[in-house]
């Protein structure tokens, strides 16, 4: 009865709304310019196309969620996947809706700004600091550039900020409220999303887990255990399940076979729906495919009547195209001299007789069957004369071997190793003895259809393992840089150059805010050292509340910077400036909060702050032509923008 005057009160933080609008404007305006492929779009684009065509692929650079979000944007824009992403600067045809391809990353990038605002508030700093953090993010040229194209960093940063914001929301909420649990769940979900976009999201996830476990440890002394259970559930179980779920979507969407099939096991390939198989050109002179499958066709020497091969049988293997027998001698292999060479035997009348008998050893016969089954059976081939085992050495042959992988026979029986096991992938029973007929038969497409479902889990583990273990040749890129160069923005990355004019887009941060960020990092560490030492001597400069705030600011922001920067120092990969952006965002949250903390010299500080803000705005304005790729600048103007000698800015000679 008493609640009858039904009132709705709504509070709108106008500053937040304003900042969000500005952010949307800076990130989303004229998204379809330039309408050509910009930098890494060439890389992610191919995956988007493959998603549209439902063709299976492996990308060892990261988990699939990021690609799927990009693909979602393309799907909403009606992209059909028919565009060849072959070089940076290629024009998109009219049929491709460029803005829709770039919309989702740009939207996430824009939302980072209000999130930074909210995160600062959750760290219990004032609205003014929150505004400062939002402005720093808003006017950061590098973040704008990275958001406006079909790239993954803005998604990553968005999910990371969301995870921290919602976790702190949960932590600050009164206990045992349902909305609190909702925030915790959201935090877990965004952690899973961050890790799902890029593996570097793991750094922030670990930090969040660290913060959460410190909080839990403080609570566990006097609270009931149920509190921890919900945390474990939301921050550990949910992210792991979701991470697997991304793969589930990935694998169920991509059901057609494609160019990366050979990297996977035969059983995995069998689960992919074959696209219409056209004969691969020039396959005649290769006896081995790059993935390391051995394409010898086996034939029984005595083949009347045909009977299945069993464990322990002795067989010969004849290469279908060349009719040579798989042979091995006690001669050093070309790349692995400790092992025996394996060859197709040619009778050169040298003193080496053919040794081409192999014993079949089906080592998963307990699980499967004694009979050698296509795809299912995993077989070791033991050379009868030398009792060496046929093995994939894993070393690539030089040019004369077409860079394919070397096959050897090795005596050492060092337990089980997957490089010793072979499976039959294609199997047909031919009767022709004539070489010509046999060749014709082999060129015709396969007819077997083994409809063997392998479970999602084995597909997932195989794919995950392949993604982590596939190593590609890492070489230096023209725009790659070392982590220590990021602190001072030693290098930039040229993203795009107009085909005929000087209009260009660069990944260059706002130098003023960049400097502010680095300075605030130093200042925090200095202050923290002084405070801790003085507190230890019993001199409390800060009240307990202020000290708590200061510490948690450090945990989240400085900790976030460290977790997102230090691991790169140890990495052996090709790194780019954009890898630093997540770490930078933490510093942008840190700077204004720190300023609020040291407000003792208020009047002088206000002037300085204002001056810095103006400088940031000016330098943002200054670099806008390189951020948005317009207006076009003259060579002299470009020269003036080259603030550091080490920056590469391109001039078109006319």
């Amino acid at each position: 009865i008493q609640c009858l005057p039904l009132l709705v009160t709504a509070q709108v933080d106008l500053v937040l709304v304003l900042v969000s609008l500005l952010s949307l404007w800076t990130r989303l305006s004229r998204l379809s310019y330039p309408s050509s492929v910009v930098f890494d779009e060439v890389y992610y684009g191919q995956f988007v196309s493959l998603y549209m065509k439902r063709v299976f692929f492996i990308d060892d650079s990261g988990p699939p969620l990021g690609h799927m979000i990009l693909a979602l944007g393309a799907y909403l824009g009606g992209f059909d996947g028919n565009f060849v992403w072959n070089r940076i600067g290629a024009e998109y045809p009219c049929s491709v809706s460029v803005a829709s391809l770039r919309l989702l990353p740009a939207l996430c990038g824009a939302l980072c700004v209000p999130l930074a605002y909210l995160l600062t508030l959750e760290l219990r700093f004032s609205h003014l600091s929150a505004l400062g953090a939002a402005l720093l993010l808003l006017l950061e040229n590098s973040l704008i550039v990275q958001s406006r194209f079909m790239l993954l960093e803005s998604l990553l940063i968005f999910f990371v900020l969301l995870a921290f914001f919602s976790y702190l929301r949960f932590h600050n909420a009164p206990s045992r409220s349902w909305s609190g649990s909702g925030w915790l769940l959201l935090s877990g979900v965004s952690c899973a999303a961050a890790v799902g976009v890029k593996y570097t999201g793991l750094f922030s996830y670990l930090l969040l887990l660290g913060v959460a476990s410190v909080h839990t440890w403080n609570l566990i002394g006097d609270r009931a255990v149920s509190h921890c259970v919900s945390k474990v559930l939301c921050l550990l179980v949910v992210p792991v399940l979701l991470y697997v779920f991304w793969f589930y979507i990935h694998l169920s969407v991509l059901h057609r076979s494609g160019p990366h099939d050979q990297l996977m096991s035969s059983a995995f390939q069998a689960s992919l729906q074959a696209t219409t198989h056209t004969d691969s050109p020039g396959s005649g002179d290769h006896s081995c495919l790059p993935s390391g499958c051995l394409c010898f066709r086996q034939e029984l020497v005595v083949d009347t009547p045909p009977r299945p091969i069993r464990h322990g049988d002795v067989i010969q293997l004849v290469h279908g195209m060349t009719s040579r027998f798989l042979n091995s001698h006690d001669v050093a292999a070309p790349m692995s001299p400790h092992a025996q060479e394996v060859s197709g035997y040619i009778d050169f009348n040298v003193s080496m007789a053919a040794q081409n008998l192999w014993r079949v050893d089906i080592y998963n016969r307990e699980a499967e069957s004694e009979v050698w089954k296509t795809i299912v059976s995993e077989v070791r081939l033991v050379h009868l004369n030398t009792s060496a085992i046929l093995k994939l050495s894993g070393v690539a042959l030089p040019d004369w071997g077409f860079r394919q992988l070397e096959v050897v026979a090795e005596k050492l029986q060092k337990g089980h190793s997957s490089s010793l096991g072979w499976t039959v992938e294609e199997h047909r029973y031919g009767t022709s003895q004539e070489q010509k007929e046999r060749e014709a038969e082999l060129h015709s497409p396969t007819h077997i259809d083994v409809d063997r479902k392998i479970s999602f889990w084995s597909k997932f583990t195989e794919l995950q393992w392949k993604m982590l273990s596939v190593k590609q040749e890492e070489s230096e890129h023209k725009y790659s840089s070392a982590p220590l160069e990021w602190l001072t923005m030693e290098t930039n990355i040229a993203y795009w150059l107009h085909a005929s004019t000087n209009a260009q887009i660069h990944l260059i941060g706002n130098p003023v805010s960049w400097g502010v960020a680095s300075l605030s990092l130093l200042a925090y560490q200095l202050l923290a050292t002084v405070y801790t030492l003085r507190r230890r001597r019993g001199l409390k400069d800060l009240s307990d509340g202020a000290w708590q705030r200061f510490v948690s600011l450090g945990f989240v922001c400085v900790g976030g910077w460290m977790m997102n920067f230090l691991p790169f120092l140890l990495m052996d990969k090709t790194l780019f400036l954009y890898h630093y952006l997540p770490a930078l965002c933490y510093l942008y949250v840190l700077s204004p909060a720190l300023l609020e903390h040291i407000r003792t010299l208020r009047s002088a500080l206000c002037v300085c702050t204002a001056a810095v803000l103006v400088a940031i705005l000016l330098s943002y304005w200054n670099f806008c032509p390189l951020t948005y790729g317009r207006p076009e600048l003259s060579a002299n103007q470009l020269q003036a923008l080259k603030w550091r000698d080490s920056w590469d800015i391109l001039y078109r000679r006319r």
Partner: protein
Amino acid sequence: MAKEECISQWHKARDTSTVRNRKVFPSPEQTHQSLIAPASNSNKQGDDAPSSNGSSADLSARRRVDPSNKLLLMVVTGLSFATRLYNITEPPHVCWDETHFGKMGSYYINRTFFFDVHPPLGKMLIALAGYTTGYDGTFPFVKPGDKYEHHNYWGMRGFCAVLGSFLPVFAYLIVQELSRSATAAAITATLLLFDTGCITISQYILLDPILMFFIMAAVLSMVKFNQQSYRPFTASWWLWLVLCGAGLAGALGVKFVGLFVILLVGLNTVGDLWRILGDLSLSLMDIAKHFLARVVGLILLPLFLYVTIFAVHFVLLNKSGPGDGFFSSTFQSRLIGNNLYNASMPEYLAYGSSITVKNLRIAGGYLHSHWHLYPEGVGAKQQQVTAYLHKDHNNVWLVRKPDNETQSGTPDLVRHGDVIRLEHKETTRNLHSHLHQAPLTKKHFQVTGYGINGTGDTNDLWQVEVCGGRKGDLVKVLRSKVRFLHKATGCVLYSSGKTLPKWGWEQVEVTCSPYMKETPSSQWNIEDHVNPRLPNISISLLKPNFLEILLESHIVMIRGNSGLKPKDNEMNSKPWHWPINYQGLRFSGVNETEYRVYLLGNPVVWWINLASLGLYLLMVAASSLVIHRGIALQQKRLEDSGVLRGGGGLLLLGWLLHYLPFYVMGRVLYYHHYFPAMLFSSMLTGVTLDILLRNADLLLCQPYSDWLQRGGQMVLLFTVLYSFYLFHPLSYGMTGPLAHDPSSAMAGLKWMDSWEF
């Protein structure tokens, strides 16, 4: 404040507990001579009462020497020397890395300069041991398996074995100091005494026993020093501080792995200073004194000793040898026998001279070319130009004028601003650059050898620029810093310091850099200068400053270390292999007829260590949680938990610091890198198992729990002894058939397929 009281109380409590524990829980070895009757068990509850309020801290009791304890220590020492020195001269041939370290010992005795990736102390000590026992430095140590014959090698092996014998003793003392329990110390010593791996690695001419000796010495001194904290600035306090510093210097002086123990001591010291800082009864002045004392003892002293080691190294090695090319021209000029020693050559660079050009970055190498071409896909398929660290006839270049004219009479001198060609003497190709990406540094241009018999194109022209010079200045040999500017593209000849892949013979990349900043990488000096038509003038180089030499040799060492990349075909060891004892190292012999020694830890010991690590974490987690939840515990359990977290934590930290860094190392790794970490792991096992057994009364009631405890200790002892009996041939040598043969002595012991014996 309250916390401080707790800590000091805990310290005192620990002291009394030692005495009590010794009475109640004699270790298996001392049961037969224990003077205290089991009746003292009944005193236990009574003992607890006074110690719980921390008032009865009798420091004198701690210094009262327990005779049985002393005896135990003597037994450990005796066994340790016996196991390490037994069969020391077998096999009488070069084993494994003896080929390196023995050879380097010989270099010291012959005073020949060489280069190695490790600091010199270990090899100097080996040389000293060899020298004093009559080894004359004449054995060549060419490859493993070479017979020593009449050469005196036992001295060097014996020296390493003696240092290795100290490891169980040190471990015993450290654990005793940390846990105040002779049982824990005895368990640790047993594990280490009967570990075949520790025995094997101590018995040969290697750096590892020396390194581990210094590591353990430093840790022991650190622990002793911590124990002295209640009476700072006394003589014994200073003694342990200084000894710790000396140990650190020694460890770092043997191998850079010594950095890990420095980190351990550093962290411990930070913790210590933190404790002192919180002690409000001390004035800031006192704290400053504490701080300065540690700076002196743990930073300045080790630094001084370390530098001294290098000084001795450079004074000792004064003859030219295989390591010259790694160092700068000025450095080489002080080595007797080097061509730059009292060098005499034409003073100014002239046309027609044969020269070698050395990059000025530290260990930059000589400008080098050879007949091999860049492979397909790496820029243009022209002849490779690299930087090479060794002296070689392929480093020689001829200075030519752009037009191919030859002149008679006195040759013209090259001046600042002149345009020249550099012709490679061996292959007659010109130094050439063009707008192709360099092989590794993609921002730079490729440098190749081009043309034939000196005829090329305009891309072969380079402008000489003397740094800090003006137009017309002459180029001084050895002393001028020269840059070569490519005329056509405007880039500058540059050595990136990156190692080329196999096709480039793992030499260093040379590029042409479009960035004009003056760095040592783009500066070169003319080292050898031969021109028969000019008079030779004696050139005295500036004597290099000692600090410069020190810095230079360190950069060379660090680069050498990171250059030890795993080879493609080699089976390389991964860090996760080590704690599970996955695969050992062949020290000597492969097949049946040979005398085989195989470095492999006693699997029983290693697996006990591994299990104890897990056990330790569980026990710490459980006890911390219980204490944090505020559940009341007996005093005895609180003390045990304190030992677990204090002493155990220190040992765990030591293990982590000596193990985890290997995961991020790019260089090639071997099984023996784990041994320092294994020492820490064994000590942690001692502490963990002792506390586990002591708390057997959580499970069983009074008399049975004591039986369980004693039984556990006995089982442990005999398991380790029996496994040592089984595996001892690994260390002391095996002959006859390999283990898979039933007639072998090791038949049935190949528990893992990856073991190769």
